[in-house]
């Protein structure tokens, strides 16, 4: 169950560009903890699938790789959100019975 939700949680935070550790903290503060060792490779994989795009920022104290949703990723995020709402509505209806 968690597997599918990680991607959705991640995409929801990437409408603005963020780097790895920033994202880790952001998810943690939203009470959605994820291992650093899971997050970093996942970012790369989502990038290679075209869901995310990245840029290196070399103006700060150390170079950081920023990720954000690509155009394709935005569409994917929207459809994932819809699926999520449909599924949670269905489950909520059933477990309230």
């Amino acid at each position, binding site marked *: 169950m968690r597997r599918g939700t990680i991607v959705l949680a991640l995409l929801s935070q990437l409408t603005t560009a963020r*780097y*790895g550790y920033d994202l880790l903290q952001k998810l943690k503060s939203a009470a959605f903890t994820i291992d650093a060792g*899971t997050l970093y490779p996942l970012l790369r994989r989502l990038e290679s699938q075209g869901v995310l795009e990245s840029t290196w920022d070399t103006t700060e104290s150390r170079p950081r790789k920023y990720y954000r949703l690509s155009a394709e990723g935005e569409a994917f995020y929207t459809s994932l959100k819809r699926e999520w709402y449909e599924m949670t509505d269905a489950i909520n209806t059933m477990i309230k019975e």
Partner: protein
Amino acid sequence: MDLIDRYTYAVTRSLPQSQRKEVESELRSNIQDMVEAERGTPDERVRKVLASLGRPETLAMSYSGAKQYLIGPEWYAAYMRALRVIVGVATLVALLVFTTSHLSTDESVVGKIISIILGAIDGAILAAFGVTMVFVFFERSKSHESRYNEVMAWSVDDLPHVPAKHQAAKR
């Protein structure tokens, strides 16, 4: 710093050359961010962060996205079926071949039986190995999905006929 070098090296050395530098710089920058947020002496902080990232080989596997299994769930059922049939047939053939070839030797009866049984076991192992290699090849081949669909295309007509004795039992 030395520990971070060793860690990023351990993660990236098994990756394809084309990805190494990029993964290395990104991982290093993430580790440095994490180290900054920790408390303690510099060495303690680095150790804490690297320990939390876990075994470098595991991380490397997530980065490479390589399959961590030989035969996946899609092929498993077909693999088991093929394994049973082919290993069964191979064992029988080996039994037959070794029985005929050992009948005319001047070994003791016990010696003959042992040779025949060992021969049959050899045949079974060889068959199991061969079947496994074929399915590993299927699993790894690029056009995996289309090949799978071709081989495993299923229609209602493929349903087995119920053997006569089962039918009788039901009525």
